[in-house]
Structure formats: C-alpha cells, structure tokens
C-alpha cells in the first residue's frame, strides 16, 4: 500500500473509532429509553432509528449536505461555535456515520435491555442500589455480549460506509478520504492492483470481525438466547 492508502486507513479507523464511542454514549440511553417505553410514539422513534437500514445512503448524505452547508442553521451554528465549515470536514463524516450506523448499535442494545427485564433491577433496588449503580453492576455485566456486538457492528458498518461520506465529506486526503473512497479512486483511475489490495484487506478484516462477533455469541454462553436473538435481529436488518 502507498502512503495515501495508509493515510486513508488511519482516517477510516479514526472515524470509525470516534463514531463507535459516540454511538455507545448516545445509543445506550436511547436503547434503554426505547426498551422501557410504552407510549405509542415508540414505534415512531424506532422507525426513525431504523431508517438508515433502508434509506439509500445518498439520500441521507444529500439531506446532511444541505443541513451542513453554511446557508442552513446546523451549518451556521457549527461555524459560529468552531469557526470552521462543517460540510466536507472530518466532523461532518463522523456526524454522518453516527446517524448512518445508529440502528446497528441501538437495536442489539434495545433487544438486550428488553430481555433483561425489570425483575433483577427491582431486586437490586430493594438491596439499596440506585439507578447508576444498577446499570454498572447488573445491566452492564449481564448484557456485556450485546454491547460488544453493538460496538463491533457499529464499527464495521462505519468502516464500510461510502455513499454518505461521498456526499458530505468529499475526498480530502487526511480529512475525509477514507478507504472506501480511496478504493473508488483507484477503480476510477484503472489502478486495479491497488484496488484489489484495498478490497481484499477490507473484506478480510470485515470477515474476521464478524466471525469474532459470532464466536462471542456461540450458544455455550449462559445468556445464549438473548445473544442469539440479538445476532439474528441485527443480521436480519443488515440484509434488509
């Protein structure tokens, strides 16, 4: 691989890592809220969260491009706060990725929280454990595998992103030029050798990551039903 490809790899990993962290931070409370929610608006929020699964990435990218432009409020606010333009920046592709990969993190977590139920949390509360305490001592250990699944899927899906980034990030080396864009460049330039190299590395790393997730969800685990169901849900939605 050449220097520009290494740079694209680093940008990709940075984008995916940051996106995954942000997704876990906002996805966990969102998934919790959805799992406990009984209002009829639940389906509306669920649909919004799931939208990126079915929406062409270019549609999402198009609307984000408009929103991020200096003529519109989100772009203006960003510019006032940071002094930088939002569109075609690293921040833009991270925000885009967060929206695009949201269901891959929220859905497995929501499913895990629903299956965990209230009974153990009630028991913990009656032993004197407050909400934060309960989350870290009961919820997190019992849904650990779902968190790993959610993080891995969020990360992998972000690495594989193309359409949204092309729309809102463009192709700025070291800023928004990620592996999938670099691959597209090589193909456009008929540099099939480098395209092959990038493709095979992306393919292998995705394969290894997914195999690791499924290994983690092997039925020997004690809360295997929860895990298998999580994997199925996510898998089904990915294929959709």
């Amino acid at each position, binding site marked *: 691989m050449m220097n520009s490809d290494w740079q694209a790899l680093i940008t990709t990993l940075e984008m995916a890592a940051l996106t995954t962290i942000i997704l876990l931070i906002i996805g966990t409370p969102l998934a919790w809220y959805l799992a406990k929610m009984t209002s009829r608006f639940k389906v509306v929020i669920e649909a919004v969260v799931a939208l990126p699964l079915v929406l062409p990435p270019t549609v999402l990218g198009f609307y984000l491009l408009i929103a991020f432009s200096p003529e519109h409020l989100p772009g203006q606010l960003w510019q006032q706060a940071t002094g930088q333009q939002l569109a075609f920046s690293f921040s833009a592709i991270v925000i885009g990725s967060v929206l695009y990969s949201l269901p891959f993190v929220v859905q497995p977590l929501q499913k895990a929280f629903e299956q965990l139920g209230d009974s153990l949390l009630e*028991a913990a509360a009656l032993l004197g454990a407050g909400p934060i305490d309960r989350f870290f001592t009961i919820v997190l250990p019992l849904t650990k595998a779902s968190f790993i699944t959610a993080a891995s899927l969020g990360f992998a899906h972000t690495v594989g992103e193309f359409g949204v980034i092309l729309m809102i990030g463009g192709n700025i080396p070291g800023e928004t030029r990620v592996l999938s864009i670099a691959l597209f460049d090589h193909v456009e330039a008929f540099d099939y050798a480098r395209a092959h190299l990038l493709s095979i590395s992306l393919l292998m790393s995705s394969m290894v990551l997914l195999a690791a997730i499924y290994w983690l969800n092997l039925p020997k685990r004690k809360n295997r039903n929860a895990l298998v169901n999580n994997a199925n849900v996510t898998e089904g939605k990915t294929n959709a």
Partner: protein
Amino acid sequence: MPNSPTDVFSQLIIKIAVNYPQFDLAIDHAIPLQGITGVFGHSASGKSTLLRAIAGLEKNLSGEISLANKSLTNTKQGVYLKPEQRQVGLVFQNSRLFDHLTVLGNLEYAVKRCKQSKLSLNNVIELTELTTLLAHKPDELSGGQQQRVALARAILAEPKLLLLDEPLSALDQHSKTQLLNMMLNIQKQLNLPMLYVSHSLDELQQVCDNLLVMAKGKVVNFGNIHQVIHQLNNDDDDAIIHQQTSLSLPIKEFDNGHGLTALALNAQQDIFLSCEPSFAQQSQLRCFILASDISITLTEPMNSSIVNHLFGTIKEITQQKNKVLLIVHCGSQDFFVSISAFSQQKLSLTLNQQVYLQFKASAVRTFIH
C-alpha cells in the same frame, strides 16, 4: 385495631388505592410491626400488589404508606421514596438472584449497599445454611437453595420490614419445611418483622402470629391467626379454606412411651399426635385439625382405637348445603366439626348438648414437621 399516636412507631400504616382497568385495590389498614403477619387470599385478590406498593415498585397508586412513622409514600405531599431508599426487603417467588455473581457475590451485593451493617455476614450464612454453597453460581443451585440465598441476601440489606411474596410456592415439601423453619428462626433471632404472602393456609398457620385476609383488592379480615382461621370457617361461599381448628398448644410430654406426643389443651384434657423428633426442641406446637376429620359421639368412646376424645358443649350449628358445621366448646377452646346433615338428624344434635369429639392422632396435623 389500636391506632393511638404512640404506636405509629411500631406500625405499618397503609391507606392506598391502586386503580387498573381490570382491578382495583383499596386498603386502609395498620399492621403491627412484630412477628410474622400472613397475607392470605385467592390469586388476583391483590396480595402481591399490596407488597409491591409497600416496596415502592407499584407506581400506579395514590394515598399514603408509612413504616414506623417514616413516610414511604404520600401522594398528596408528593412523597414517593424510591425502593432503594425504603429499607424494605422483598423475597420474590422466583429468587431473582444475579446469575453473573456467585452466591457469596449475591450476598455481598447486599452487604456493600447496607448503611448500618449491624449483622454479621457469617451469622446470616449460618442461619440460612449456605456455608458450603458460597462459591457456586445461582444456576447451579436447586430451587430451595436459591430461595435460601434470596432470603439471606434480603436480610443482609438489613431492612426494617421483610416482605415475602409466595417464596415457597415453587418448592418441594422438604424445602418448604426447611425454609419455614429458617424464617421462624430468623424472625426470632433478628426480631425482624415480616409480611408473608401465601395462598397456602397450611404454611401461614405454622408461622404467622397475625393473618390479614384479602379479597377483590380489599382487606376482609385481620387478627390473631387462629381467630381469623376460625372466622374463615364460617364463610359460606364455598370454602376459601378447609374448615379447621387451628391450635397453638404447649407440649406436655414429648413421647408418652408409645410414640405419641401429648399437648395440653387444658388442665384436664390432652391432645395426642404422632411424635416427631423435631418436637423435642420445642415447648409449643402449632397444629390444626380439619373439621371433616372430627366425629361426634353421644357417649364416651372407651373401646376405640381413636386416641383423642374430648368432652364439650355444642355452641353453634350451621347448615351448609348437605353438611352441618358444629362449633363445640371444650374447656376454653372452640372446635370446628363438619358432619353430614344425615348424621346430625340421626343424632338429633341441638344447641348446648354435651357430646364427645373423637379424632385420630394422625388427624392432628403440623405442616412444618
């Protein structure tokens, strides 16, 4: 029901309403915080809802609950203490142990969050006989063992009141007996008031001091366990319980030399039952005799294999379909006797008539032993 200002410190006061489309609960009652109080009723009578309300798990309620003069809930004043702030323990029907922790881990979970820590962990482990199970994971334990862990864990949080929601219903007879004995023992040693929900009167009869009876979301009876059971005998509506005489009697002689234990009914009369080794450690015994297990004779049955015969006076005769329920006064104790209407006519029994009751030693039942 005494309810003077001084004893609010020793009472659980409940004035609540819970409303659901299919079910309403309305309770205005004070329960003394001493011994074990049984809560009895059919399923869907509101027993579990009552416990959940006290524990703070029932959100959909209005009214007030106070425990030893500390307000847990007062919807008018906007007070609603969270479950973790109430110092109320709850042992659930399914033990709700934390599977990712060992038995010891489950117990320590309670100890770490307990503010007073007056109890010794080792003491509670011994009381609940968990010493050999500490390193196990909950899913390696039997149902009875899991409930013992749940009981120990609830106690270690050092609650001011322990609620037990059908803790024995999924257990076999041996485990039930073991756990009931543990509950009695713990109640005495730690002086921890308990509210014990069950649909099994046999269990409640063995351990409770008071009994609260619920039906359709309301309290329909409350008082001394034996008295309340005797009052339930008179409920015509096809028997919420098996009609019975509920007794708590001193052990006069552990073994009469023929394998029978003698209980002193009064100065003149004894009741005999089959001797069990566990009676040896006790001075008092809880037992019950089903009304259908007692028969009536007009003369003293001297030539019978039946060991128990008591002399008494008929106080009440109640027709119940093709049966007749008699209340017979023997010394200071009422006995409930159910005979067929046919037998009542044959013997032409009348009020204030003097009769003999007879029942076998095996008709004197204890649940625990």
